[in-house]
Each structure stands twice: as structure tokens, then as C-alpha cells.
């Protein structure tokens, strides 16, 4: 406190003569002492005039949503405009979110961390925070997921006091990393992650400085889109600032100050109430793994390693309503692009709880304050090393948080709220990334397709998951229009988009289905392209109550295909891929590559090459044999399940007359098939003790492959608790190392 005051040498900008640092320290002290935001005991404004209070929240929330909708039409890159890949929020002077817009809400809390970082580092003293200033940040170690997400933060003043921050985030198509793209997979350190802005003041007097503009536009491969998005974020932030000024003029500064604090405390209380309303005390566990086969593929020597990310999740809900989430046992970070700082993990908790528990409440940092969490320091999910790469933490973060959905789903189910169960979601990845150069004018085009934000949602306990329409980080996302993506990715138009058979996780209620696309290179000098999904050698999470995980990704492309000849002769070309049929190879010819790894390192492609990718489905819920047979037939008729999967997994036999498209249920054969599968289950399964002996033997005799053993060693090294649990379960001697 004294340091702040001594160094400021001018009037503090916080409330009641305090510095921002003093305000933050006081806020944290009050929360520590009382367990309530700012120590607020009664929601006085709400109690005194409920209607005025709700109208006030609606005004701010409305201003944020309007700012988002308006800003993306003022100026925005195709990625931002096409699927609304942006978000705005209003924060207290200490950096706690008060209200948020729709959009990529996962960043609301990461921006909060960036603002707090500025306050903690006493930006009020140096470089100073003044009306008209514009700050920008994208440093993952400070408060961001990865460098491609860029935040603009504008201080909102009323007279001489800072009354809040108006902030916005957009996702860049390129951030100047060691390869083109927004989720690069080749970096191994910070120094390959691209352009970093660590909470920098980029503008004064409502004007973005020229030195920043010149520098940033030279730092990325798509300067036009950088410029459009920076204007978009700044415009949105100013729309919010102006709305706050109007709010204060109408309601008074005292009301605004009290309201913005009270509403965060109310957000906290709503979350606590939801826990008691919908969950139950107890201990919940889930685990997810992400296998990365980089031993052969990685570019850099240090990165050439096969490894598995271990993401164990435990939630303990106490009788007092305490909600504690821990990832004790998480494995290590490393020389790869998938490390994660603590801020994004906090953001992920926040965005999922906003969707699963408090979607009808006051969505702000109150939800974040209502729970406790532990991300082990030095693990992949709290790496604590700014020099690591944080290019694509999504590869681990997204799978890891399917654990949260499964844990909460068990509670929701037990409480009778079966309609709220969601047993996971698909991985939002795989569409092409990179960029190319047009032959006729040498112009660069970036590939950064956000149709990834339309994967399958996991099944609920009473209905199927949403097909091709979910992204955990942007609850309102969709595929976007293919034609708009083609404007951006001009050298690689679509050949086809269609439902991908057998990508929905099997279950009584199936997961949402995934889909696939084929792209053709046309009119290029060349293109450097890659694709990434986290599930290839491992499934992403699992289903629940007997549901299966959704199918994994695979790689497929043809170099030098004969597509042009076929098109000129009016002959058919593939509209997707069935790995068992050989149609892709037969119709396209060329040099065809198929691989089971989900990550494809950047490669150079040329005209006539055709690339295929699969967007993920979601996991299933319940025993697949209990899915009503006619629903399976409907699935077959919609291209969701193939004849083989229907018969072998769901036990449904259907037939169709030659030349007919529609399948018809064969009830008798279905009954027989389902009985046969149950008989097989009885015949092939083991008593648990026999299974336990067999697995233990594999561990003891060192029959696990190196990535599995490495993962176990990492987790045991970072957590004595996890090591003891592992040894105790398998009855292994003290000190045993796999």
C-alpha cells in the first residue's frame, strides 16, 4: 500500500482516494475474512428496489451484447464475423467481471486475470492508467489461453475515478507463430508462439499509437485481419464505456458502484444456491487422457517424444455447499505447444459452469469466486513457466474438462434432473490450418477455419446429444457458411461437407454426430497446411452409464489427385470417406496417405491435392443395446450409423430393398442379435479379480508402453497422494515405479 502511494506521486485513481492495488488488496482481504465478495452481507439494492436492480443488470448486459453485435459489423475479420468469435465484458476496477456479452465466454475470466496482473504490477504508477488509454494483451502466462486470443482493455473513468474496465477479445487467424495458423502445433517454447503483447498500453487519447500499429501488422501474416479485429475490439470497448457513462448519468455514480459489487456477490450466491438446488454432497471423479505421438513426427529434437497428458479430475462437494475441484495427479508440462497456465483452467471451469449450472443466473465472476480449485503447480495445467509454449493449450484443456461434465452429470442424474445431464462433448479441432499463396498475384491466404466450433455434444440421460453444433468455449457457435470460409481460404475451396457416419458416441442416447469435409487446392503456388485433433491414439474422455466415447480422428489426403480429370469428364468424385470402402482411393487416385494420428504436422501441398478431415462427435449415455431399435434405424436413414455399427454395437438389424435408400427394421433379427450380444458379454467377460490380476501383471512385468509408463511416472513424481493411490490400488510395493 505504502509503495503504491509513494510511487504514484499523484492522486490515486481508485475509489475514495485509494490506489487500485489498495482496492484489490482490500477486496481480497474482505473475501478472505467473510467468504463474501467485498464482504457484502445484504443485497441491499436488490432488496430495496428489485425492479430497478434487475433493470440495471439488463441495461449493462444489453449494452455488452449490443456492443458485440455492433462491433463485429463495424470491422472484423471473417473468423470473427462469421461465427461471432469474440466476446465483451465489463469489469470492476480490480478486474472482476460484472456482466458479459455472448460469444467466446471462456475468455471472460482470462481477461480478468490480465487486468488483475496489471493492478498487481502497479500499472497505475507505471505506465499509468488514464482516460483514453487502450491496453492490449495476449500473454497466456499472464491471463489468456493462447497468443491467438487478443484482448483489448479500456479503462472507464467517471470524473477522476476509474469505475471499471470495458474489455473485448477476438480470435486471430494468425499470430505470427513459427507456422501459420491460430493453433500451431509445432512450437516448443514461448519464442515460437508468435507475437506477444504483455498488457501493453497501445493507445492514448482514444487513439491507437502508430508505432503499435506498424509493429503489430509486421508481426503477423495477416495484417489486414489484425487491423480489422483491433478496430472491432476497440470499437466494442468504447461502446461499452459510453453505455456505462449513460448508466451512471441515469442511475448515479453511487448506485453504479454499489450495484457492480452487489451483482458479483449475487452471482456468487446464485452459484452456491444452484449447487444445493441441483447437486448433492459427495466425491466425484473422472479422468481424461490425450496421447501425443510425437516421437517420429515432431520437428525439434526436444519435442520428439511419445507422451500422454493425464487429466484426472475430482470434485468434492461438502454439506456446507463448498465446491472444491482438484486435478491432483496431473502430468508434467513439456516441450510442446499444449501447456496450460492456471488462468485458462479457471476460465474453463467458469465457462462450463455458466452453461451447466448458472445459465439463467447472473453470469459473472461471482461463479468463479464461489468455488475452490487446485491445479498442481508445475503440472501441465498450471505450468508456471512463461518460457514454455502455450500455443495450443486447447488440446489438453478441452478434453480435460469433459471430466467436469461427467462429474456434474452424475449429481444431476441422482437429483432427478436428468434433462440437465451432458456426458461430454466433441473435440473442437481438425479443420485445416496454415496458409497458402495464390499463383496469379502472389497474395497470401490464411487457413484458420472455425467450422471446428460445430462438433457433437454429448448425450443427456433423456435425449441424444446435439448434432454438429457445439463448442465448449463458445456456447452460441455454429459451422459458419462454407462460402464465407472460402473467401478467407481462397486457395482451398470445399469439395464436400457431409455427416460422418459412426462418429456419434454409442449409447441408449447417442452423442451428437460429427461430420467431414473434403477440400481441394486450386490456383496456388503452394500451401503450408496442417490439421490437429487431440484424439487419435487415445479416445477423448468417455461416455457415461455404459455409453461409449466417440470415434477418434484420422488423417487422409491425396497428392496429385485426378480430381480435375474427373470433373472435366463429369464423373463422380467422393463426397467424404468410408475407410472400409476404398472409394477415396479409387475415385481420386494420386498418392493417398492414411494415418491414425490425429495431429498432422505442417506439410507443403500443391494444386490438385485433396485433404479430408473429420469433425468430432460427442460421447454416448447408457447401454447401446437399450436404444429403441426404430431410433437406430432412423439414425441409419440419416447417415448417423452404418449398417455394421447398428448391428454389432446397437444390436439392430435392418434391411432395404435393392435400389431403395430407406432402411426398415427387422424386429425378429434385432431381438436375436441383441440376445447374442448379451450372450457374448457373459461369455467373454471376466470376474473383476481376474481382470485385476491380469492388469497388475502387465504393470509388474513392465509390459506398458513408454508413453503410458512415462505418464504414470510424471504423475507419481508430482503427487505423492496420487502415487500412493496408484500403488494401493494395485497392491504394489512402496517405492514401485512403473
Amino acid at each position, binding site marked *: 500500500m505504502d509503495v503504491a502511494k509513494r510511487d504514484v506521486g499523484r492522486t490515486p485513481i481508485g475509489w475514495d482516494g485509494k490506489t487500485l492495488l489498495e482496492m484489490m488488496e482490500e477486496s481480497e482481504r474482505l473475501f478472505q475474512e467473510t467468504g463474501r465478495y467485498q464482504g457484502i452481507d445484504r443485497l441491499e439494492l436488490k432488496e430495496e428496489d428489485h425492479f430497478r436492480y434487475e433493470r440495471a443488470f439488463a441495461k449493462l448486459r444489453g449494452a455488452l451484447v449490443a456492443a458485440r453485435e455492433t462491433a463485429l459489423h463495424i470491422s472484423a475479420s471473417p473468423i470473427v464475423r462469421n461465427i461471432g468469435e469474440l466476446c465483451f465484458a465489463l469489469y470492476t476496477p480490480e478486474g472482476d467481471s460484472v456482466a458479459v456479452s455472448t460469444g467466446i465466454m471462456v475468455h471472460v475470466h482470462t481477461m480478468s486475470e490480465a487486468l488483475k496482473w496489471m493492478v498487481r504490477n502497479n500499472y497505475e504508477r507505471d505506465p499509468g492508467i488514464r482516460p483514453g488509454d487502450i491496453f492490449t494483451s495476449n500473454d497466456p502466462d499472464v491471463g489468456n489461453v493462447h497468443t491467438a486470443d487478443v484482448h483489448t482493455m479500456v479503462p472507464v473513468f467517471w470524473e477522476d475515478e476509474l469505475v471499471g474496465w470495458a474489455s473485448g477479445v477476438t480470435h486471430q487467424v494468425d499470430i505470427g507463430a513459427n507456422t501459420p495458423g491460430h493453433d500451431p502445433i509445432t512450437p516448443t517454447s514461448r519464442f515460437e508462439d508468435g507475437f506477444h503483447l504483455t498488457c501493453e498500453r497501445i493507445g492514448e487519447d482514444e487513439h491507437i499509437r502508430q508505432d503499435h500499429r506498424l509493429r503489430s501488422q509486421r508481426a503477423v501474416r495477416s495484417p489486414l485481419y489484425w487491423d480489422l479485429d483491433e478496430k472491432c475490439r476497440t470499437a466494442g470497448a468504447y461502446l461499452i464505456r459510453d453505455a456505462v457513462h449513460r448508466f451512471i448519468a441515469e442511475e448515479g455514480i453511487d448506485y453504479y458502484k454499489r450495484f457492480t459489487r452487489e451483482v458479483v456477490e449475487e452471482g456468487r450466491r446464485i452459484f452456491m444456491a444452484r449447487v444445493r*438446488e*441441483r447437486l*448433492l*454432497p*459427495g*466425491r*466425484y*471423479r*473422472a479422468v481424461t487422457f490425450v496421447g501425443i505421438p510425437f516421437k517420429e513426427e515432431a520437428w525439434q529434437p526436444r519435442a520428439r517424444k511419445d507422451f*500422454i497428458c493425464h487429466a484426472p479430475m475430482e470434485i468434492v462437494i461438502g454439506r456446507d455447499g463448498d465446491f472444491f475441484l482438484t486435478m491432483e495427479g496431473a502430468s508434467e508440462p513439456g516441450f510442446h505447444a499444449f501447456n496450460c497456465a492456471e488462468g485458462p483452467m479457471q476460465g474453463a471451469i467458469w465457462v462450463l459452469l455458466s452453461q451447466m449450472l448458472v445459465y*439463467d443466473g447472473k453470469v459473472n465472476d461471482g461463479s468463479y469466486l464461489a468455488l475452490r480449485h487446485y491445479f498442481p503447480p508445475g503440472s501441465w495445467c498450471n505450468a508456471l513457466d512463461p518460457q514454455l509454449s502455450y500455443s495450443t493449450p486447447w488440446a489438453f484443456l478441452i478434453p480435460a474438462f469433459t471430466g467436469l461434465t461427467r462429474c456434474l452429470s*452424475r449429481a444431476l*442424474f*441422482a*437429483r*432427478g434432473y*436428468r*434433462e*440437465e445431464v451432458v456426458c461430454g462433448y466433441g473435440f473442437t479441432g481438425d479443420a485445416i490450418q496454415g496458409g497458402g499463396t495464390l499463383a496469379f498475384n502472389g497474395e497470401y491466404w490464411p487457413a484458420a477455419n472455425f467450422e471446428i466450433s460445430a462438433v457433437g455434444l454429448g448425450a443427456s*440421460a*433423456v*435425449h441424444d446429444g446435439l448434432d454438429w453444433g457445439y463448442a465448449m468455449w463458445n456456447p452460441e457457435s455454429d459451422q459458419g457458411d462454407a462460402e464465407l470460409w472460402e473467401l478467407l481460404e481462397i486457395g482451398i475451396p470445399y469439395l464436400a461437407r457431409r455427416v460422418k457416419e*459412426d462418429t456419434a458416441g*454409442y449409447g441408449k442416447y447417442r452423442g451428437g454426430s460429427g461430420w467431414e469435409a473434403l477440400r481441394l487446392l486450386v490456383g496456388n503456388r503452394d500451401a503450408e497446411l496442417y490439421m490437429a485433433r487431440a484424439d487419435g*491414439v*487415445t*479416445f477423448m474422455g*468417455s*461416455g*457415461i*452409464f*455404459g455409453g*461409449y*466415447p466417440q*470415434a*477418434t*480422428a484420422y488423417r487422409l489426403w491425396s497428392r496429385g489427385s485426378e480430381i480435375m480429370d474427373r470433373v472435366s469428364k463429369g464423373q463422380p468424385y467422393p463426397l467424404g470417406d*468410408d*475407410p*472400409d470402402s476404398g472409394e477415396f482411393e479409387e475415385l481420386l487416385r494420386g498418392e493417398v496417405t492414411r494415418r*491414425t494420428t490425429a495431429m498432422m504436422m505442417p506439410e507443403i501441398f500443391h494444386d490438385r491435392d485433396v485433404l479430408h478431415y473429420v469433425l468430432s462427435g460427442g460421447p454416448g449415455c447408457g*447401454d*447401446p443395446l*437399450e436404444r429403441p431399435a426404430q431410433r437406430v434405424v432412423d439414425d441409419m436413414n440419416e447417415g448417423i450409423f452404418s449398417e455394421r455399427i447398428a448391428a*454389432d454395437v446397437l444390436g439392430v438389424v435392418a434391411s432395404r430393398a435393392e435400389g431403395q435408400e430407406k432402411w426398415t427394421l427387422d424386429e425378429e433379427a434385432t431381438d436375436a442379435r441383441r440376445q447374442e450380444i448379451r450372450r457374448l*458379454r*457373459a461369455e467373454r*467377460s471376466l*470376474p*473383476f479379480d481376474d*481382470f*485385476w490380476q*491380469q492388469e497388475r501383471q*502387465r*504393470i509388474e512385468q513392465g509390459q*506398458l508402453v513408454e508413453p*503410458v509408463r512415462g505418464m504414470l511416472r510424471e504423475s507419481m513424481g508430482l503427487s505423492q497422494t496420487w502415487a500412493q*493411490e*496408484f500403488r494401493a*490400488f494395485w497392491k504394489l510395493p512402496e517405492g514401485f515405479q512403473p
Partner: protein
Amino acid sequence: MERRTAKDLIDGQLSWPQLKEIISHPKDPDRFQVVMDVLRERLGWQEPVLLPLAEHLYIVQKGTQRVVRCDCGYEFGDCRENWKTKARVFVRNDESLLREIYPQMMHCDPQWMELREFYCPGCFTLLEVEAVPPGYPVLFDFQPDIDGLYEWLGLPLPSSASE
């Protein structure tokens, strides 16, 4: 929620518009009792059912013990222990076993991960699937604090249910 609606909910008979209506409205505080009444009636067990643990599993008060029981009647023992340790297990840990249920190239590498299917030994319903690397401990998914729940709900535990 009306009892009839609860039955349809449990049976998956509600259409999406009906579900959307339920999801969009404030939650009915008596849902637990309504759903439990339907489930207890259907199961027809003499012992009090305390909680649905999963689609087919229930925690039942049996004398002084709380046990996990499948709706087919098979008992998995004390609910404080993982019911999976009393289940039948089938592990898909090679290419051919994975290919039985997934298309070519669209499943895990069995060296890196296996699928463990846990069946009820009574009716061979598939109760849970684990996707974990070989050698990973079996997960104890859910340990509910039943007394805590009834305390939250202000409901008495069924008379023979106090531990």
C-alpha cells in the same frame, strides 16, 4: 413436476420442445421426491431405495447396510466400496476387439489406451465404459453423501436407514 411427466422423463419419452420447456423453467424443488416415488414404485423393492446412482444402479438400505443394487436385483455390496469391483469386466485391448465396435482408424491405439466394459453379472447390462491407458487404476466415479443430501432436502431418511 407431475408424476406422469416424471415417468415420461425417465423413459426418454419427452420431445425436445417439452424438454426445452423444462430446462428453461426454474427447477421444481420436489423433483427428487417425485422421481424417487416413480422409481420406487417401479422397482417394487421392500427395502428403501435411497438414491439412483446410475441408469440401472441404486443405493438401497438393506438392514443396517447401504448396498448398490442393479434393477435386475444383483447386489454389488457396500456402497462405500466401488461397485465396479463386483462387476464382470471385458477389456478391449487389441485391434480386433476395438474394430468390432469402431470403424477402421477411428479408435484408440490399444497400446496407449483400452476400453473397459463393466457389466452387471446378473443381467449383463453394460453399466459403465472406461477409456484409460492399460495399468490405470479403476475409477471410483461417485461416492454420494446420502445423509448430506437428505439433510439438504429436509427429508427424513427412510426409517430403517439411519446408520
